[in-house]
């Protein structure tokens, strides 16, 4: 019982953590139609910037979490405004290639700026430590992640469904020309959405600092694949799908690692393959 509960908790926290990264990826795909490989780089940059604020500027972790991702938004702005904007109309593989180029560039820049060695943050005071659950310790910070995930989901839902901006964004994502003809400045809107998506990815990075406890120049590459898988399982462009997909992947991976370790490297891919064979458009994807 203790074991099952802890496996589920581990799964929930890792699922919510992936969701935080996948949410920005999904939002950008849903609105701009771009599969952003560099999203993992924004995650990495978010982690490094937060870490810098926390460690070198002497500010606390929470200041790092606030300021770090904001700094990364500038990178997102540059990528969208000066590069991505010019390739919306060309084929998908070229978009992938463009964002892949940024993965190389950002990975290398991080190495130049912060060094190649792994950085490891000091442990947290507030929200650090653990609480016993059924006789085994569980980190408080993971409970915090489990809470932040739905909070971000709620925020996104409220933003898209309840605000004027949300309506504009949804209109523009379903029909660019139509929105443009109604006077929406679509390019500016897209830049805004991209920067917001960047912020979400960077926020995930900032939250990863205590969660993973390690920063390395290649840290974005593992997470981006998991985020892709989650987004695809949920149905590309569907935030609800990404949320559910992340939960499914998180919990099933935790069970897989614990009870079927032989398959744990392939497990997420098997799940994705299975879902796509069963429902090609993903769990909540619109049929195209």
């Amino acid at each position, binding site marked *: 019982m203790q074991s099952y509960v802890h496996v589920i908790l581990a799964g929930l926290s890792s699922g919510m953590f992936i969701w935080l990264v996948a949410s920005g990826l999904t939002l950008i795909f849903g609105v701009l139609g771009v599969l952003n490989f560099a999203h993992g780089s924004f995650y990495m940059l978010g982690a490094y910037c937060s870490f810098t604020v926390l460690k070198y500027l002497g500010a606390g972790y929470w200041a790092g979490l606030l300021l770090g991702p904001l700094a990364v938004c500038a990178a997102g702005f540059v990528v969208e405004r000066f590069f991505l904007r010019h*390739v919306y109309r060309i084929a*998908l593989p070229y978009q992938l290639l*463009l964002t892949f*180029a940024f993965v*190389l560039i950002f990975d290398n820049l991080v190495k130049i700026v912060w060094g190649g060695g792994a950085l490891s943050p000091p442990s947290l005071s507030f929200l650090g430590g653990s609480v016993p659950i059924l006789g085994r310790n569980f980190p408080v910070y993971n409970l915090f992640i489990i809470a932040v995930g739905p909070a971000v989901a709620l925020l996104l839902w409220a933003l898209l469904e309840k605000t004027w901006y949300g309506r504009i964004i949804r209109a523009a994502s379903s029909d660019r020309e139509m929105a443009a003809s109604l006077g929406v400045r679509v390019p500016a809107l897209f830049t805004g959405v991209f920067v917001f998506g960047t912020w979400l990815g960077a926020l995930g990075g900032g939250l990863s600092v205590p969660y993973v406890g390690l920063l390395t120049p290649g840290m974005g590459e593992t997470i981006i694949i998991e985020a892709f898988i989650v987004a695809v399982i949920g149905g590309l462009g569907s935030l609800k799908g990404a949320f559910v997909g992340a939960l499914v992947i998180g919990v099933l991976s935790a069970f897989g690692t614990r009870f079927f370790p032989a398959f744990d490297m392939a497990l997420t891919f098997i799940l994705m393959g299975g879902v796509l064979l069963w429902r090609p458009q993903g769990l909540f994807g619109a049929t195209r």
Partner: protein
Amino acid sequence: MKAQTRNAVAAAVVLLALCAVPFLSGKFAIYLTMRIMLLGIFAVGYNLLLGQTGLLSFGHGAFYAAGAYGLGLFGVHVSTHPLLGVAAGVAAAVLLALLVGTLCVRHTEIYFAMLTLACGMMAFSFFWNAREITGGDDGLIGIVRAPVSLFGGIRMPIGKDEQFYFFVLFFFALSVWVAHRIRHSPFGLALAGIRENARRSEFAGVPVRRYRLAVFVLSGAFAGLAGSLEALLESNARPFMAHWTHSAEPILVSLLGGLSSLAGPLVGSAIFVAMREIIQRFTENWMLGFGVVLLVIIMGFRGGVVGTLSALFRKATAPGEG
């Protein structure tokens, strides 16, 4: 007709130049040229799928790996004859491609890409974890380059790089020739039709899924060929051949060179290998340099290097036509 003659002459010149490489250049250049040709075989086959049929696969590394492990296991357990080994490698790749393709060709676009990615990574995980058969992450070692014996009597050694070079060149030329024929065959036209408009192709009487499967397996065979040749070149087969990062290489070079021509992936392969080499000689920060060059190519050469240059060439030679 004129363009045809020009292409034939260009091909002949390139082939001659390739034949001359072992006599004119240093060992490292020979080695790099072999690597370019291997990537070229991989990419030119892959581009039948991406450029000709419009399908983006993220799992072709698996077939490359199947070729390498196929040759390696055949060499270790059955026979070290290189030609039989290559045949075994290609056969393994074809079988795997048939299996994966049957599952995947129902889907298109990004879903096809993700499904092939999943299958490729399952293969990667298999090669990594089936340690008894594949040697795990250490890779399959002990692959040797035995002489090619033909018709009982003739024995051609390929142990030295200068000798093996011609073995690779033979398969490279064969691959390019086959890809060229396919592009200009009825089959190739049907594939182009599927790329342009799959639904209409069905209404033209083309069984689209079967064609997709056929070209998927065909490109898998090219990947398997390249993989088996690499296993011979480097004397090993490794799981990372099946990893998605390796599957992305033919996509990268096809896009670099241009999707719409036969020469595109080949030029892209040469650029990819040579450029990394150049950058690495100037800086340890090769990723940065490579990323910037990629950006320039994507932003500046929308149709790939070959496409853009040939458009420029046409403009320059025919100024009157505007």
